[in-house]
């Protein structure tokens, strides 16, 4: 649909170009193309340039403009276009400087495409025309000192060991080690011994079977079956656990004779079907069974010292020792130069003692020129020496000591500070503070250290150092000011505790440093660190605001943190929300929570939250303008302030709807329902585009699937009932419409057997809610009320539960994840939302949770809690509907919902084509910079320095080694799209030779506001509800986080900021319109997720691979459609 739109434009433009092609040469082609691009007509710009090249085959100007345009859009045709330009310049005797520049560009593009032969040729051309300073390195990547062998094909082993077949060779053993540590053993509480899990047991059994097969394969390691009836056939079948049934010939069938062996055969992907077919047809069959050679870090002797007896195979030894495996992970994460120095200093038995600390906190260790690199640099070296007892000057000893110091606390401090930069780093590494805060973290008792569990536990310190904000005076930002924190520590809020010393000292606090010291002290705790959580949440809340919140508001928020913390993300949505509105919200929320009638409480909470959820959506999308945000919010909250009965609830809901429509400047005469759908689709001014229509259609589909009642029906019916109380007749058509709707839904209990009902776990309150709706009979109620005007006036209260569901349903519709199978299949999903929660758990204002998945008796899963984290919960519910395209996939429980959320929450109506192009240009420039870095030591140094703040030392070294080997694709595989963007931001402004950089400068001059860092962050950032307590789109430009205990991997997932950057660059590449991105991004995201095959939680390259697979498919499809379209129009090259 989107691509055909591009077509239509192209064809139209083709006619235009033909008509005016004669005058093209007199004009500045590049400028004209640029003007078209600015209008969002990039495809027409290409067409214009193509036409110019066709019309004037000898025009270097036309060819230059065309080639540069293609380069800026990362077109696969770029190299061919530059080749033509180079030939033209040579033929026409073009300036040597330009000829050299073109050859240089071609060399870089060749390297990027992995075409080293062409790069060599073009580099020679570059030198020939006088170019200097570039060379290919021809260095080979450092080979492993030793390789180990794993019996049989790697693919079979990888399947059994849950490793991605796409792993780079040097990642196989580290990934295996990680799986062994996390999945291979389990401990029993009764003793310290570890027992192998079924996972590891299967791996070992597979190895044993593979060795038998290897023996059968003989010296050349090929299993050969000449024909069906041979001894080899019998041996093979015995090893793989099968036997023949029916004898050789057409009736032959292989069937299981030894289930454990047969299981290994099938699970490892042995080609059983092919073998069976060969035997049946009596054809020869063979299978290459050469062992997989896998590189080993260091040498085998280091890991497996030679003893007296015979050494077992390394792979068996490796998986049988979890502490060795853990050390291997830690070493593999180290910068290789540092690792080598540490290896020389520490034999493996000693190193193993600190494997857990190295695994968690070693990845940032770096030794350069014999010195340890420490956070804070030279200024802090003395302080680090004091803390560690060894000077950073003695690099190896420094880290040896750091690993052993305080059970890992100092290493964890080093790690947290190594991951940050800028003013926060300067502040925290000021020598005195460095000491002071470490004392707080370390405490008096260091055991247990922070590296004890499988996932790191002291997450809070990492979050604190990452999210701390500095005020302009160089002091840390204390939300609400120091007095607020004095009060909060002296008189802790509900659910918070603090130790007596801090409590006592806090009374005399005068400086922010004192608060920070207390917070650092709390970050060492696994529990009871509410103050720290409150601090981070309130800091986040202040971050986006135009005016910081007052101490009074901050204290109110802190005091109600326990009950309302999940709602902070809602309050964060508008930077202009007044303190008064926030206080009113707190008051109303607590009042709602105290409603004793649970049915009414659920209805009130659902209606209010439904409206506030809509407010949040409309504010985010700009359909409620900034200046209206506070008043709309206040109107909604005020309407619910004093709801005493169902009629008042209905009126409050209606008031809220009207407040939202008014704030969004809606036509008062328009249909409420239609207007709401327009706003939900995403814009105040519907464009009528195909993408927009598609979104609206999908909204209606979900609305119908959920059997919701439209706002118009409800409001008309309410007006009619108001009339009834004044003597008018009931509008039977409207009443019938409501009754029909309810007749379409059935309670889930209806068809269940007694056994199912008895074991049922379907929620009482949600079931009652649905049952009550089914019982509504307006005609009967009118008759019952008789002439009692008061009772008649209350009748519209019966509509309140319906209005609640409609409002809640609007939120569900907007956040429907790609596919939305549940919303299309379970007609009670919206109605089943449980705002009360299980007995003893007051879920009304808690985060949205998934409940009741699995077991047929549950009548389907449902959501529980408030609506505040609905986008995540819906994505979580939907993730198991993804269909992995690979035979084995690790779908990350936390990563997948976050990526789905990232595809759904951000909409593209307020993003401009120029912004898309800006990102595309930077990604293109970043890629070219990587290629140039392979050609020049000085560029390489700049590029590596540009990447250093974002890449861990080990990954940076991998990139460097790839560049030194001229393997630019391998380097690119290790630089994430968001990192490429940041690299280009750093380098492009100063580059005067690149046409891409020139366009970046032009855009930054002509559209400075649209392409400012803040605007780009808003347009292409990702929502970070856990990491930043906010659904704001934002690029935080952090290093990707490690797996964190407690917060699980949600934070890790939220630190991944590459998806929208990648998709924007892809859109720029294929000339997709920005409006179409509203439809394309969810679709691309789903395809990306279905492609993921990762071996562990931090396998980011696997994610990038999936993005690239989808990107390549999209790009090829676009190219073929583009070419077909131009052919139809007669404009083919």
């Amino acid at each position, binding site marked *: 649909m989107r691509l055909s739109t591009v077509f239509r434009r192209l064809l139209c433009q083709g006619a235009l170009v033909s008509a005016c092609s004669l005058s093209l040469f007199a004009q500045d082609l590049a400028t004209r193309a640029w003007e078209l691009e600015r209008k969002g007509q990039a495809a027409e710009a290409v067409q214009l340039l193509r036409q110019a090249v066709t019309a004037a085959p000898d025009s270097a100007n036309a060819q230059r403009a065309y080639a540069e345009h293609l380069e800026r859009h990362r077109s696969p045709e770029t190299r061919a276009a530059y080749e033509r330009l180079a030939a033209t310049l040579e033929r026409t005797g073009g300036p040597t400087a330009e000829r050299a520049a073109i050859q240089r560009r071609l060399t870089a593009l060749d390297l990027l495409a992995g075409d080293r032969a062409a790069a060599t040729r073009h580099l020679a051309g570059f030198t020939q025309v006088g170019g200097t300073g570039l060379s290919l390195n021809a260095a080979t990547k450092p080979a492993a000192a030793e390789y180990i062998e794993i019996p049989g094909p790697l693919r079979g082993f990888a399947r059994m060991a849950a490793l991605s077949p796409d792993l780079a060779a040097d990642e196989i053993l580290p990934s295996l080690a990680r799986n062994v540590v996390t999945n291979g053993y389990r401990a029993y509480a009764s003793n310290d011994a570890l027992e192998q899990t079924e996972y590891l047991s299967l791996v070992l059994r597979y190895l044993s079977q593979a060795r038998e097969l290897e023996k059968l394969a003989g010296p050349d390691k090929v299993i050969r079956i000449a024909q069906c009836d041979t001894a080899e056939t019998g041996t093979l079948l015995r090893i793989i*656990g099968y036997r023949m049934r029916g004898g050789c010939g057409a009736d032959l*069938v*292989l*069937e*299981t004779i030894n*289930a454990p062996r*047969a*299981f290994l055969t*099938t*699970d490892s*992907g042995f*080609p*059983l*079907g092919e073998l069976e*077919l060969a035997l049946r047809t009596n054809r020869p069959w063979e299978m290459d069974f050469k062992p997989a050679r896998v590189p080993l870090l260091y040498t085998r002797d280091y890991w497996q010292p030679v003893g007296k007896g015979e050494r077992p195979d390394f792979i068996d030894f490796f998986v049988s020792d979890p502490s060795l495996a853990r050390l291997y992970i830690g070493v593999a994460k180290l910068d290789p130069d540092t690792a080598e120095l540490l290896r020389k200093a520490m034999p493996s038995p000693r190193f193993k003692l600190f494997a857990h600390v190295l695994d968690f906190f070693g990845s940032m260790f770096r030794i350069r020129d014999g010195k340890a690199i420490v956070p804070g640099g030279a200024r802090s070296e003395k302080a680090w020496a004091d803390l560690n007892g060894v000077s950073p000057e003695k690099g190896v000893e420094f880290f040896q000591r750091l690993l052993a110091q305080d059970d890992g606390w100092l290493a964890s401090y080093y790690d947290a500070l190594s991951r940050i930069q800028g003013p926060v780093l300067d502040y925290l590494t000021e020598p005195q503070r460095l000491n002071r805060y470490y004392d707080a973290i370390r405490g008096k008792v260091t055991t247990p250290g922070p590296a004890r569990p499988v996932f790191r536990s002291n997450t809070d310190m990492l979050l604190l150092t990452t999210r701390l904000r500095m005020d302009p005076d160089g002091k840390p930002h204390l939300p609400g000011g120091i007095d607020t924190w004095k009060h909060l520590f002296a008189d802790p809020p509900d659910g918070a505790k603090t130790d007596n010393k801090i409590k006592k000292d806090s009374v005399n606090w005068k400086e922010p440093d004192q608060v920070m010291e207390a917070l650092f002290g709390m970050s060492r705790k696994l529990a009871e660190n509410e103050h720290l959580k409150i601090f981070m949440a309130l800091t986040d809340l202040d971050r986006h605001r135009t005016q910081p919140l007052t101490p009074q508001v901050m204290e109110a928020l802190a005091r109600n943190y326990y009950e309302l913390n999940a709602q902070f993300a809602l309050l964060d949505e508008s930077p202009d929300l007044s303190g008064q509105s926030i206080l009113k919200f707190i008051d109303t929320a607590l009042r709602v929570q105290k409603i004793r009638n649970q049915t009414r409480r659920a209805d009130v909470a659902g209606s209010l939250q439904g409206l506030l959820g809509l407010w949040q959506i409309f504010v985010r999308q700009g359909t409620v303008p900034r200046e209206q945000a506070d008043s709309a919010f206040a109107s909604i909250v005020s309407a619910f302030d004093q709801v005493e009965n169902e009629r008042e609830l209905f009126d409050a809901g209606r008031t809220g709807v009207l407040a939202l429509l008014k704030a969004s400047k809606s036509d008062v005469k328009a*249909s409420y*329902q*239609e207007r709401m*759908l*327009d706003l939900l689709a995403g814009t105040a001014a519907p464009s009528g585009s195909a993408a927009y*229509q598609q979104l*609206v*259609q999908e909204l*209606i*589909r979900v609305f*119908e*699937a959920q059997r919701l009642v*439209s706002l*118009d*029906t409800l409001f008309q019916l309410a007006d009619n009932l108001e009339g009834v109380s004044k003597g008018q007749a009931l509008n039977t058509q409207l009443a019938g*419409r409501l009754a029909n709707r309810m007749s*379409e839904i059935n309670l889930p209990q209806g*068809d269940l*057997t007694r*056994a*199912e009902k008895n*074991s049922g776990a379907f929620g009482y309150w949600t079931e009652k809610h649905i049952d009550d709706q089914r019982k509504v009979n307006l005609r009967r109620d009118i008759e019952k009320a008789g002439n009692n005007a008061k009772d008649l006036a209350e009748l519209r209260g019966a509509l309140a539960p319906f209005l609640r569901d409609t409002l809640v349903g609007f939120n569900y519709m907007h956040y429907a994840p790609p596919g939305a*199978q*549940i919303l299309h*299949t*379970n*007609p009670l999903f919206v109605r089943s939302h449980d705002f009360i929660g299980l007995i003893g758990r007051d879920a009304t204002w808690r985060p949205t949770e998934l409940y009741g*998945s*699995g*077991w*047929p*008796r*549950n009548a*389907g*899963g449902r959501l529980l809690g408030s609506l505040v984290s609905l986008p995540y919960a819906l994505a979580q*519910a*939907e993730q*198991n*509907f993804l*269909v*992995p395209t690979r*035979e*084995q*996939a690790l*779908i990350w429980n936390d990563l997948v919902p976050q990526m789905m959320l990232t595809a759904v929450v951000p909409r593209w109506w307020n993003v401009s084509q120029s912004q898309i192009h800006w990102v595309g240009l930077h990604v293109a420039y970043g890629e070219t910079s990587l290629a140039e870095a392979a050609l020049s030591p000085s560029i390489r140094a700049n590029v590596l320095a540009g990447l250093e703040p974002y890449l861990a030392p080990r990954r940076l070294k991998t990139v460097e080694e790839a560049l030194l080997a001229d393997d630019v694709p391998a380097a690119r595989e290790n630089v994430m799209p968001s990192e490429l963007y940041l690299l280009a931001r750093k380098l492009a402004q100063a580059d005067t030779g690149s046409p891409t950089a020139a366009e970046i400068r032009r855009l930054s001059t002509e559209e400075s506001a649209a392409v400012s860092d803040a605007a780009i962050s808003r347009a292409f950032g990702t929502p970070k509800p856990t990491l930043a307590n906010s659904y704001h789109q934002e690029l935080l430009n952090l290093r990707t986080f490690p797996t964190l205990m407690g917060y699980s991997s949600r934070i890790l997932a939220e630190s991944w900021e590459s998806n929208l950057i990648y998709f924007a660059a892809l859109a720029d590449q294929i000339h997709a319109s920005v409006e179409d991105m509203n439809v394309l991004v969810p679709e691309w995201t789903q395809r990306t997720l279905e492609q993921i095959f990762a071996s562990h939680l931090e396998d980011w390259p696997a994610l990038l691979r999936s993005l690239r697979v989808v990107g390549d498919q999209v790009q090829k499809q676009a190219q073929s459609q583009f070419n077909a379209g131009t052919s139809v129009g007669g404009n083919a090259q």
Partner: protein
Amino acid sequence: MNRNFWIAAALLVTTAAGIIIAQERPTFRVKVDMVVLSFTVTDNKGKYVNGLKPSDFRIMEDGIPQKLSTFSEGNQPPVEISSDGKVKPIVIDPAKPEATRNDAFLGTNVFVLFDTSNYMYKTFVYASDAIADFIRGLDRADSVAVYTYSRNLSRASSLNKDHNQAIFGLRKAVAGDDSALYNALLLTLRDAAKVAGRKVVIVFSNGPDNASMVAPDDVRAVAEDEGIPIYVISTNEVNNDAVSSNVFKRLSSSTGGKTYFARTWQKQVEAFEAIREDLGNSYTVTYYPQENPNEGFRKIAVELIDKDKKLRVQARPGYRPRSGF
């Protein structure tokens, strides 16, 4: 905003008369597509009754007699039924199989959904053998797809007339962890619904589900509406898990399929044999429903005209017409 364009477009693509059900936004419609109905006829001893003719049946929807378009028995080629009740073979142009889409009614589209979750860990390979045997025994005209599931669905082998491909896919199934049976069944039904002609889904499972978000009865409704019989082979004893057993029975009976409780490999083979017999002995008719104001569940009744009253017809009880644009 003006949505007239979309309304017009919706009218153009709707194959039959639509009925407006959303009052404020007249774009959402009930679509009435051709109904494909498969059923078996058995005598009082449970033996299949073959050789019946179209004129032997009367199909009713909510009591409204329907006019049959095509009729076929087992895997025999379908015949077209003209307005006067006469039958004639459907001529299929091999050069334009898409144009004569009734070729889709040659054979059955069989979707096998295989539980590879932890619940099947111990019996995984035997189950695989039993399914392979079943696929080998299918009629050449049948197409078969093999899907596996644990937490997610996996399309091990997409719908194909080459049964070897299905077996290759089956033989490479990977054991998984959690079981999301009803999610997977829903996705399988959605795939099956896109295929023209007669189709069945065969679920091979141990029963429990610990990861689905959709309820079995919502999935059942989809199968009813799409006219896809669900056969279930449970590797559990009927009494071991009463809840799952009841669900299985309900799923199959209301879609025109059957449930078999087959704990042993031998029983599983027998169950597959029974399903194959069911497919080979069933009748399939198609019709375009007569005008019917019922937008909800439409009851289907298959009546035998002038036949022994003791014959038993097993068919799905009805369906809901589709909603859409």
